[in-house]
């Protein structure tokens, strides 16, 4: 809870800073603040959550929540670091964007630490509304408007469904408290609303993680939004939603019946296949990564099939994916800037003009494709291995075939960087992007070499 308060306070500070014209100091202070939050989270982690009873009805800071919160804070840190340069041309709105990102983080933290469905709902809405704003944040850009509009319409539609699900759960259980619901769900006969409610909530979350067939918004929104927002969506928002879905299912009814598993399997296969197949034919990098994100959502859904012991695995996958995503977007942002041409052709000859950036982008794409030493490999491997143990060999084979397909489009970008001649002259790259890219890919590789750093966190 302290984390949440601290984050919110930081967000409020950002808004105030604007009033006091502290724009120059904004990013440094926010970064320091986020680092402090990071420290706080880590420190709170060591305290047994059972001792902290003050907020138990709403928030429980267990290992899962702390671990994911740490990841979120880290991702936000990277995103905020990039904001300064990214929003150079919108100095007046700069602090708003930073503040919104911080609030978004607050929503995300709430989503993984909730013990009450109202907290869950609030978290998801805070996250979503922040993203609507960010998506449409380029006011004069028709694409950005369209992206915001699409995201908003579909997002609030999904919110409605989630709300309806929550309502049905409440109707069946007489409470919003998940521990209570969990106990009740084990006991006597339940009204049919309860499972329907769960399903509706799950569907809403599937929308948020952009799993097929609820994925249609993602490519359009990713493409239309400003690059940094896309980065936020594809990393922070996606893994938050995934973690939340996982937590939701694990705290409410630990044993999903086989029929429900079949739904997950089908959705997972659909997401992977649609995401990868569609990505093959994309020319816009952001759009391609959107489809890639859809396929990764499909992969992550596999974790739901062995929900009792897949927590650390999911954390690992999320970290690997998000860190690779941040690194990739840092490079994309530094190449394309805010808007403009975002096709793969823009990356032609990057291997010659900016070897470091090209190497980083290559590494992050390799990580997403699941090539060893990058953490993406271990993430996929653990997922596959776990899924095989749960008896879904078929799903794993589909997953593997999809991994193969995915190489096709990841390498399209790599090929562009290394084999084609650069079109324009060499452009300067802001240092901060490079730093972010290097840091995040370094983290990615480190946890790839020592997966225990992450997997041991959740025991």
């Amino acid at each position: 809870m302290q984390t949440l308060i601290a984050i919110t306070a930081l967000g409020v500070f950002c808004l105030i800073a604007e009033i006091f014209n502290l724009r120059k100091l904004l990013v440094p202070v926010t970064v320091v603040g986020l680092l402090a939050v990071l420290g706080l989270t880590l420190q709170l982690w060591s305290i047994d959550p059972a001792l902290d009873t003050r907020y138990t009805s709403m928030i429980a800071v267990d290992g899962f929540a702390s671990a994911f919160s740490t990841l979120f804070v880290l991702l936000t840190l990277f995103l905020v670091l990039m904001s300064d340069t990214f929003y150079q041309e919108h100095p007046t709105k700069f602090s708003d964007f930073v503040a919104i990102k911080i609030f978004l983080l607050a929503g995300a933290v709430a989503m993984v630490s909730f013990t009450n469905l109202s907290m869950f709902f609030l978290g998801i809405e805070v996250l979503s509304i922040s993203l609507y704003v960010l998506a449409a944040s380029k006011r004069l850009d028709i694409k950005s408007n369209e992206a915001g509009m699409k995201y908003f319409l579909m997002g609030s539609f999904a919110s409605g469904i989630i709300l309806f699900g929550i309502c049905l759960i409440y109707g069946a259980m007489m409470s919003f408290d998940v521990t209570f619901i969990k106990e009740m769900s084990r006991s006597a006969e339940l009204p049919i609303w309860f499972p329907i409610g769960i399903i509706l909530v799950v569907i809403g979350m599937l929308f948020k993680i952009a799993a097929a067939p609820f994925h249609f918004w993602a490519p359009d929104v990713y493409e239309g939004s400003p690059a940094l927002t896309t980065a936020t969506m594809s990393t922070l928002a996606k893994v938050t939603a995934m973690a939340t879905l996982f937590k939701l299912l694990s705290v409410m009814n630990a044993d999903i019946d086989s029929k429900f598993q079949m739904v997950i399997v089908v959705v997972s296969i659909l997401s992977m296949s649609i995401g990868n197949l569609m990505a093959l034919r994309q020319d816009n990098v952001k759009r391609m990564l959107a489809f890639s994100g859809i396929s990764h959502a499909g992969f992550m859904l596999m974790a739901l099939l062995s929900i009792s012991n897949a927590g650390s695995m999911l954390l690992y996958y999320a970290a690997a994916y998000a860190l690779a995503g941040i690194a990739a977007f840092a490079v994309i942002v530094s190449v394309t800037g805010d808007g403009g041409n975002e096709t793969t052709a823009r990356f032609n000859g990057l291997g010659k003009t900016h070897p470091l950036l090209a190497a980083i982008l290559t590494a992050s794409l390799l990580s997403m494709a699941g090539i060893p030493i990058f953490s993406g490999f271990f993430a996929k491997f653990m997922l596959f291995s776990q899924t095989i143990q749960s008896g879904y060999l078929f799903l794993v084979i589909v997953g593997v075939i999809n991994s193969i397909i995915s190489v096709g489009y990841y390498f399209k970008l790599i090929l562009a960087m290394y084999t084609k001649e650069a079109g324009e002259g060499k452009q300067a790259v802001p240092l901060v992007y490079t730093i972010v890219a290097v840091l995040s890919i370094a983290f990615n590789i480190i946890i790839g070499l020592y997966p225990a750093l992450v997997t041991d966190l959740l025991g």
Partner: protein
Amino acid sequence: MDVTTILLLLLVGAVATFLAGDKLASKVALVFSLGTLGVSLSLLNQLLQGTDISFVGTWIDNPKVALAFKADGLAMAMVLLTTALTPLIVFSSFGNHFNNSKNFYALVLFMAFAMAGTFLAADGLLYYIFWELALIPIYFIALVWGNGDAEERKKAVLKFFIYTLGGSLFMLIAFAYLYSKAGSFLLEDLYNLDLSAGEESWIFLAFFLAYAIKIPIIPFHTWQAKVYQKAPTVGTMLLSGIMLKMGLYSVIRWQLPIAPHAAKEYMPILIGLSIAGVIYGSIVALRQKDLKKLLAYSSLAHVGLIAAGCYTLTLDGLSGAVAQMIAHGFVIVGLFFVAEIIYRRYETRTITDMGGIRTQTPKFTSMFMILVLASVALPGTYNFVGEFTVLYSLSQANLWFAVLGGTTIILGAYYMLKMFQNVMLGETNAKAFADVTSSEAITLVAIIAFLLFFGLYPKPITDLVEPTLKEILAVINK
């Protein structure tokens, strides 16, 4: 000192080469690769004296992955193949100029690192990681420094990457499954696993897919010729000299002992397929117009025979296969280097553009001739030892296998001599052909010396690998 020294040295070498800058890169790479060769020789010495040079460390607890490097005779033989060929390959490239040579040589050393790791790893996942890791450097080497039309090259290289990666991912599934059964990736644990016939059979096939593409066994070979043609010669050497052997080595080390019953069941089909590769590769090689492609198809034929030897599941088959792997590694590197030497002077790889070189360069001709003869397994070369043993093992399985596999000595002679005739002989070529430089000659002589020495005295290598092969056979026949 244990085997990790080799790996570390190569890795450090890669970094140092990268840092050394473009001018010094090739020399630094050579120094490190020679150093590695020295270290591996001294390690071999230790191994022969009975010192344990294996290394087992912990890495990941969950899933339980160990940093296990097992250096027995077989692994050391293959590591030595790698560390011996690497300096040769690096040295052979001294006559070329590469843009960004620091990247290039760093990738070469990194690839050597990955390949040595593949040979040494005794933990399934570790092995898999090295296996995949080897793919990345060669991808970039072929892509960035390759030759020919960029679009076609991209297509060929991408196909290669996706194809081989695709195959290996099925192997990854098999490993994941094995892990769920054994709770460990360690080689011994996997060997001791009791699998049902059905499980063995699909695991075997999953492994097969990975290896059949890498080796390659027909009809999974379609990536090979194009990539060999398009890659820079150094890359082609690395691919054909060492990387193919990764697949064959893995058959012996992983596929057969883990799924022995399936191996026995599928044996005739697999041998048949391998031998079909021998004949097919030879026949296709006959009419190739591009020198490198011809060598690629000859390579296809040779590895087919090696694979056939592996799948006989006999000591002869395996030891012959190992011998042939090493011999082929050297000879094919030599032959590709010959192609490169010609390219440096004539800037062509089309055979019809050559001819009449012999008059101008007797030294080169002799060395080329010896390599050609080694490649057709003339007695006295190490290739003969391997081919003889493999064919002998095939004849034990079924005489017809030996007869059909033996056609390689006829067809091989046909296409190699035809190639030699068209490249070297005939009326003196109008274009001048400078005789080999001393650095080129050193490389070729080293290769030839190796092949001839072990051709007459293969005992050291046989004695080195045989105990390991016996152990593996014991597992297969348990």
